[in-house]
């Protein structure tokens, strides 16, 4: 940044305030309190503190951006789809297997049902193969 612009602004401020002051110099002096230098120093310190915080935030933002890039890369390489499917299936099964709908059946029948289900799945797969073969 060019400091000349800032200095120009300061000069303008000075002219404006001086014109206002020269209207009644004595009154202006009476109204103006001592300790201007201290006030300047105090404000300068406060400004520098704020600016310092801005610098720290800027650094932090840069770090966070780098971290974001890294996370995006990791997400792209990961198997999120399968996880989503598993979560969906889990949710569905949880919905189906609610405590109200759950049946209290014998262990034997449950085994039979599982066997039947397995056979059904196997036959269905076989059917697919045959259909593909015919095609």
């Amino acid at each position, binding site marked *: 940044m060019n400091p000349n612009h800032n*200095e120009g602004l300061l000069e303008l401020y000075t002219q404006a305030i001086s014109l206002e002051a*020269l209207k009644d110099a004595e009154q202006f002096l009476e109204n103006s309190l001592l300790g201007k230098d201290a006030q300047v120093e105090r404000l*300068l310190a406060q400004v520098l503190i704020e600016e310092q915080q801005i610098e720290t935030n800027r650094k932090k933002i840069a770090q966070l951006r780098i971290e*974001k890039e890294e996370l995006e890369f990791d997400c792209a390489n990961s198997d999120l789809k399968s996880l989503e499917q598993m979560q969906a299936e889990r949710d569905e099964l949880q919905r189906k297997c609610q405590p109200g*709908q759950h049946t209290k059946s014998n262990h034997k029948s449950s085994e039979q049902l599982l066997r*039947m289900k397995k*056979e059904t799945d196997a036959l269905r797969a076989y059917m697919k193969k045959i259909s593909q073969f015919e095609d």
Partner: protein
Amino acid sequence: MSMEPRKKRNSILKVRQAVETIEETVMNSGPSSTTTNRRVSFHNVKHVKQYDRDHGKILDATPVKEKITDTIGSDGILTPRGGNMDISESPACTSSFQVFGGGNLDKTMDMSLETTINENNETARLFETTRDPTLLYEKIVETTTKVTERIVSMPLDDTLAMFNTTNQEDKDMSVDRSVLFTIPKVPKHNATMNRTIPMDLDESKAAGGQCDETMNVFNFTNLEAAEMDTSKLDENNTMNAIRIPINSNVMPVDMDITEHHTLIEEKKNDTFGPSQLMDISAPQVQVNDTLAIFNSPRDICNKGLGVPQNLINIASNVVPVDMDITDQAVLNAEKKNDQFETSQLMDISIPKVLVNDTMAMFNSPKHVSKSSMDLEKTIEAADKSTKYPSIADEVEDLDMDMDITEQQPCEAGNQQNDGLQLQKEDLMDISVIRDSPAVNDTMAVFQSPARVKIGANNSIIDSQKSIVFGDEMSIDETQNDGTLTLPKSNVEVTTTNDVYTSLERQEENASENVSMINESSVHSEIDKKSFMLIEEERAFMHSSMIDVAQKLEDDGSSKTPVILASQSASLATKEPSALHNSSATLNNSMELDNNTLLKTMQITTCEDISMVHESIAVELNSNKEQEQFGDETLQKNDTSNTGANFTFQGHNETSQIMNNVDSEAVNTSKISTYSAFNLSINQSISKRRRSLLNSARESPRRVALENSIMSMNGQTMEALTEYRQNKTMQTSQDSMPSMSLNDSGRDILAMNTSVRSPHLNSSKTAAPGTPSLMSQNVQLPPPSPQFEMPDFDPAVVNVVYLTSEDPSTEQHPEALKFQRIVENEKMKVQHEIDSLNSTNQLSAEKIDMLKTKELLKFSHDEREAIMIARKDAEIKFLELRLKFALEKKIESDQEIAELEQGNSKMAEQLRGLDKMAVVQKELEKLRSLPPSREESGKIRKEWMEMKQWEFDQKMKALRNVRSNMIALRSEKNALEMKVAEEHEKFAQRNDLKKSRMLVFSKAVKKIVNF
């Protein structure tokens, strides 16, 4: 003549009684078997009382029966000189053999046996000395018990004593038999020696009895000497163990040799010069003892182990042969007389005894023996007296060397006593030998119970006295002797106890001496320390006295003394007097004198000197004071006290104060003393006031200045350092654009210098300096013709964080934004200025001067107002920067929050991948659960459908298979038919071939036959 009939009566009565009792016992005993039985019983057994060594008493219990053989063993061990005395006895036997025609071989055999006995005794002696001292005490105790037992047994029965003596005679004879049986040439002597009863008055046995008696006499004397030797050995061993335990074994050998020599000399001189023998032998013993004490251990070893001493012993053994020969001749003559008339002999023998007794009474050896006994008593008393004060001296003296030297004469005294006792014993032996046989028999009867008392010398001597003088002296004298024996026996007991206790006392005293030495050493150390402390205290007191004296002198001479820090208490007492003296010397009317009372005492003395005396007096006083300081320094160095050194330094400064006359110098020195030594005693009121004023004036100001400087620097540094640290951290990251903060101060100045105009001065850059410049301008004329306003603060103008490190790079977006804001603000301010110019009453000239920064035509108030306006301008600009910074901060915070939120979501997604396993497990668990009713129905339906489909598919497959099978069968049948046909054709073709072959074969046969 009156004495003779009394002696005769007494002697006659005793002799008759003795003879009658002996005859009665012999006659009444009856057959020999009964007498032998009695002897056997007394021969084997003795009564021994138990002795408590710890309490030093005999226990009141039944005495224990022991065999008499044990006593011989104990006596043999305790009597090493028995062998030496046997040497004198053996010549008698050897002389008899020579009379009967013995040769040199007999002598050599006898000597060899004797020498072996001597060696055994010496080895036993050595063995005893090598033992521990505790064992020696045990031996001493045992001997004392035995002695007391025998003394107690005497008054019971004389007959028992007689039989005891006979038993001892038998034992002694048993020893002699072993020696004599080796010589077969003299069978008569053997027969005579085998008999045990010496009291038989048969003519044929008289000679043998005499020989036995002589042997018995020598045996007893040997025992006595041996006992004395043991006591010597014990004493010598106890003393020499402290000094040289190795060489202590050698001492008794030398003593034995010297004693033996003394015996030989006495025998040579016989009865003519016994007193001379006493006189001669005593100094020899003393000389030998003294020489032995002061000889070196090597000399003692050489003497003890030298070969010539053995030769001397052999030579000494030869001398008694002549004496024995003469005695035997006398005995033989008497025997001849006895052979002729037994009855006459009995009558004759009695007056012979009397005659011999009377002759012995008036003979010189008996007188000598009496005198010798008296001497022994005196010597013993002297020994006792010497022992007790020696013990006392040991207690008093602390040095061990003195104790050792004092104990030596005791040994010498004991040795002298031993020598004298030996001489006495020799005299007794001589007297016994020379008496007639009848007299010897009577002496043996009365002496034998005395010989039973083997132990202390006093007991033996006293008993001998009673026996000897009892036969010759009157009844009154015998009673006196009887009474004397009792206290002597008591003395014996006490002496033994005293010996034991004395030894214990010596040990106790030695231990006490050691403890006292240790205590004395400790006390000596303590005393030395205390002495040093006392000396220090004395030195301190002396120094204090000197100080007091000096004070008194100073008070007398109206001077203020130099006061030490340690004597602050005395200062309080002395100050009023000193003040009084000083006030007396001064004039009360003068104000200066009144003021001087408030000053220090040294100052008053200076003023007095300056007012009253001349400069010479001042110099003299200063010299005196220097001398005082010198003395004090010496004392303080001696005492080596830190406080004194501290005060010394103070006095040095005070001496400087005294030397300085000017008041200003004094004041400065006061300040220096105050700053250096806050605890100085001579503080005055004026010093305190000035110090307080100085502290009140200066310290708050300094503190305030320091505090203000520190606070300003701290605030600025904190902000700047933090800002710079952040920048340096940012520069470490390459991916992010950052700004440099390494030299932010320089950067600001550099940027400011680039912004400034070249015509401005660098000294006018400081903002706090403006009031001072204004004040100078008011008071003084300006240095330049044109008065210009100072530049703005570079820190305010430059926005460092928006400036990039590399100018070539693009500007930061925020910087561009800030520039736009500045431009907009400029436009606003310009409009404001234009409006003010239109409304303002100022002249155009002043307005132009404001623009050109020339303040020459402005008044003082106007210039001040303009300066304040510049500060207000800076404040406004900073407010603008602050506003912009706050906005950017908010924006950056929001952006950070958004980025963090997005990153957290992605992180959660990635974290979800880790949960995949968990989800999978949940799925498996849910799948494993039994299905619901609807689901089960659905499953069954689907299963049925699929099974139907499967069945259909199977049926279809079967149909296909069937059709295929049918087709195959038809093809099979066709093929079978075809095969059959082919087989038939093949068979036909084969038949043809066969027929043709037959034909051919027939043709071939025909041809062959043809």
